[in-house]
């Protein structure tokens, strides 16, 4: 890749924004897993594998799994954000393999939320946006 100048940065940023928009507000469901040290320690990788496996079983290959850093909800690790088009984005906590599979079947396929595992999203950020 060539070194960026200002125009190059502006272009790259536009591309990145478009991609972001697509991922966050587009037509595809997205599963975002908190993969900080504590998330991983609490079992985020197991949840990841379960999500991937269950998506495959349900032929939902277009659903993306993404990673992110710590959401700050350490008491509810592993935490996962689930974004399904036309549904409010939801933060799930204490997501073990079993819960991960339920999220795929019930939330992503069935469009219903899951009892007892919903947590509040991380607070407002400096840009006044939540994602």
């Amino acid at each position, binding site marked *: 890749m060539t070194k960026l100048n200002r125009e190059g940065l502006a272009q790259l940023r536009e591309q990145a924004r478009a991609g972001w928009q697509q991922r966050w507000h587009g037509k595809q469901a997205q599963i975002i897993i908190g993969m900080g*040290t*504590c998330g*991983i*320690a*609490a079992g985020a990788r197991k949840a990841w594998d379960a999500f991937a496996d269950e998506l495959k079983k349900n032929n939902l290959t277009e659903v993306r799994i993404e990673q992110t850093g710590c959401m700050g909800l*350490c*008491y509810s*690790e592993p935490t996962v954000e689930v974004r399904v088009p036309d549904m409010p984005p939801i933060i799930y906590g204490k997501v073990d393999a079993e819960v991960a599979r339920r999220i795929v079947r019930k939330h992503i396929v069935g469009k219903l939320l899951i009892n007892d595992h919903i947590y509040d999203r991380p607070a407002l950020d400096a840009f006044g946006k939540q994602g």
Partner: protein
Amino acid sequence: MQAETKTELSPGLLEFIRQWKDKPGNLIMVLHRVQQEYRYVPRDVAFQVAALLEVPLAKIYGVITFYHLFKLKQPGRHVIAVCMGTACYLKGGEDLIRELETLIGAGVNTVSPDGEFSVEVVRCLGCCGLAPVLTIDGEVFGNLTKAQLPDVLAKYQGKQLAAATA
């Protein structure tokens, strides 16, 4: 004075030392690399590093003994690091250490008689939300109770330990 046996340094390690040789303040980075390879700093490797970096051996030992992470003795095959940061201490980190002592016969900074485990104390692994926490070979186990320890250890040691505590 010369060290007894001469360990052949791996090409990777030699290359690392070559890359860092002319950078100021390289010693700690090189020692980390040495430990990555040997899990401690063997005496004759320290001799060779001194020669390669052209620093006095005394300086190398000065640095090794100052920092907790550098070791002069070979650790067990699996290293258990129990967190004794504040959060873990309050939530029972000390109990984990005592339980380990009964389970594997190794207290802090010692190796179990069978050479399988060694136990260390670390100060906060940054997972305080999951306190009490310990790591085995870098893998983190959180929200641990004494009762879970045998199972956790068994993952590393297989049947041997399960039989001993049955």
